[in-house]
């Protein structure tokens, strides 16, 4: 039997039962659409996260307290409730003396309730030096100014706040500049509002951020002398890995560490962070797609079920076709083409619906939640995967019913009632 004839015969059989064909395809349509949507969302999230990390610049190096994870991913010690006090002012001073380093900016972090009049909100605050704004790419303020070196040295009670926090505390009609707000009962003066849409170091959303002189943060709010992180900006004439080795050398010297396995700090370059985040988001995307593919298996089993019913219903037709000259392979081919056509058409429809939903998500997020900075991603690999999986599931779930049809004895088939 020519393939064209088999194709024509199969399409004719499928179009004779349109409603059944559509319902049979539905499982595959939902499965493929789910895979497409989740892979696209995963890719978008990956692009968004990695884009934010990349935006901090390849010459930035992050120094954090705690032992390095030696290539394995682990959450920072601070997020596990462990306070490590290994990074001190002495380290910042030593690093700043390194010719390969432009800035060494210490950072401390905490949380406080911000109050202005009747408005209050709990927010995260960052204490740092005036260089923080430059290394964090946050030097643009929409209103007022950033604090200066002398504000840090004098432990002045001044803060720069994020645009969303400004809106929450002061509303749209009050100029926040020079207004006094209370943080944990301490009065601080707002001297600047960060520009809307800005991104903090490593993708931190700055909308609700409060930045204050590190001296103020440590003495008035935290009561500590150590740092949560030191952001180092490498001199661009030096290789980042060389700078990393210089930092390691300096800190080991400061901390009197002779055994490299006993480091009490860990250093991450942008490339390190990108590699870790990239692998995390890839794994997440993979798991999302794996979960979605469960619906594909369910859809495939649905197709196998309907094909088995179809083989039984069309037993006499199979008998007739065999009587007039069809071989086992001709019958197998016809039913297999039917199954693959169903799943492939389901795949194409699923991809189209998936693309439509991905576009809708992008439209909603970019128009109604622009601060998210959502990026559109529709990986071609998802389309290829969708089409391949749908075609292969057609064969995988169609082969058993098709073989069953091909093996039918023509006499028994012709007698079937």
């Amino acid at each position, binding site marked *: 039997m*020519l393939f064209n004839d088999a194709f024509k015969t199969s399409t004719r059989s499928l179009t004779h039962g349109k409603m059944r064909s559509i319902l049979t395809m539905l499982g595959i349509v939902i499965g493929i659409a789910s895979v497409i949507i989740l892979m696209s969302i995963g890719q978008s999230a990956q692009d968004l996260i990695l884009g934010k990390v990349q935006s901090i610049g390849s010459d930035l190096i992050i120094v954090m307290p705690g032992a390095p994870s030696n290539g394995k991913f682990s959450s920072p010690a601070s997020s596990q409730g462990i306070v490590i006090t290994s990074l001190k002012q002495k380290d910042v001073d030593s690093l700043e003396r390194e010719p390969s380093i432009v800035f060494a900016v210490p950072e401390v972090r905490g949380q406080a309730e911000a109050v202005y009049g009747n408005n209050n909100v709990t927010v995260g605050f960052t204490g740092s030096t005036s260089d923080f704004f430059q290394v964090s790419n946050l030097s643009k303020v929409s209103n007022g100014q950033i604090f200066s070196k002398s504000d840090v040295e004098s432990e002045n009670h001044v803060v720069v706040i994020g645009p969303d926090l400004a809106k929450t505390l002061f509303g749209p009609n009050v100029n926040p500049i020079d207004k006094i707000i209370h943080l944990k009962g301490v009065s601080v003066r707002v001297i600047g509002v960060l520009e809307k849409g800005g991104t903090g170091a490593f993708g931190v959303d700055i909308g609700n951020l409060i930045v204050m002189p590190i001296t103020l943060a440590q003495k008035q709010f935290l009561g500590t002398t150590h740092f949560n992180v030191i952001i180092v900006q490498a001199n661009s004439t030096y290789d980042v890995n060389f700078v990393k080795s210089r930092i390691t050398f300096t800190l080991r010297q400061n901390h009197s560490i002779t055994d490299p396995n006993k480091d009490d700090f860990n250093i991450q370059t942008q490339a390190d962070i990108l590699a870790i985040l990239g692998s995390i988001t890839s794994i997440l995307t993979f798991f999302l797609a794996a979960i979605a593919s469960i619906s594909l298996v369910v859809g495939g089993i649905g197709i196998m079920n309907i094909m088995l019913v179809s083989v039984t219903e069309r037993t006499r037709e199979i008998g007739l076709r065999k009587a007039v000259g069809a*071989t086992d392979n001709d019958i197998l081919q016809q039913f297999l083409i039917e199954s693959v056509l169903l799943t492939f058409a389901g795949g194409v429809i699923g991809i189209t619906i998936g693309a439509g939903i991905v576009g809708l998500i992008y439209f909603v997020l970019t128009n109604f939640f622009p601060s998210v900075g959502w990026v559109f991603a529709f990986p071609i690999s998802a389309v290829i995967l969708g089409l391949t999986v749908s075609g292969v599931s057609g064969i995988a779930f169609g082969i058993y019913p098709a073989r069953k049809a091909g093996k039918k004895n023509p006499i028994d088939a012709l007698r079937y009632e």
Partner: protein
Amino acid sequence: MIEINNLKKEYIEEDTSTLALRGITFSIEQGEFVSIMGPSGSGKSTLLHILSFLDRPTGGSYKFQGKSIDDMTDKELAHVRNKDMGFVFQSFNLLSRLTVYDNVEIPLLYSDIAVSKRKKLIVDAIKSVGLEEKIYTEAGRLSGGQKQRVAIARALVTDPNVIFADEPTGNLDSQSGLQVMEILESLNDKGRTVILVTHETQTAEFADRIIKIKDGMIESDKAIIANRNHRKNLK
């Protein structure tokens, strides 16, 4: 054309064995019109299935056009069924949602005949049974007699040497049955071998030879050309 010698067919199910054919021997020449008659359970349908390659014997020998069935693979048997045999069934076995044209086309889908030549063959076959006006009608909308004529057109479309008809008038009224038998008779007149299974004497008498089967064995094998000549004279 057909030579069978001591043909046997035994069905074995679990511990039970049933001998449906107990040693049948006869031969049929090209152009003969043979009726196989017998009561229900006599083995006539089993014999027809073996003669038409839909089943294989469990004993004896069967040569079709000089070639033993034992030497042929299932694929070769399917090829011979398509090329040299036409089938007419009691229950028509048409695909009711397909048109007359599409039903008649089915054997051609499995043949070596070029796609470009198919249309003429299909139309000619449909014309030969007088259904050219119904060519694009769904088979399910036809009367019983028309359905059987479509089945005959389907049997003819590959221009086979032999037509096997299994109770072709069994589901028809007498008028339609007569029409169908006349078509089969005219096909035989044009040189085709027709092998008919029936339990109706009137239908069997369209043949020029009647083989009666009972309990899986031949009871009688008689030429009745006189009947046929008489009918022709009446026309």
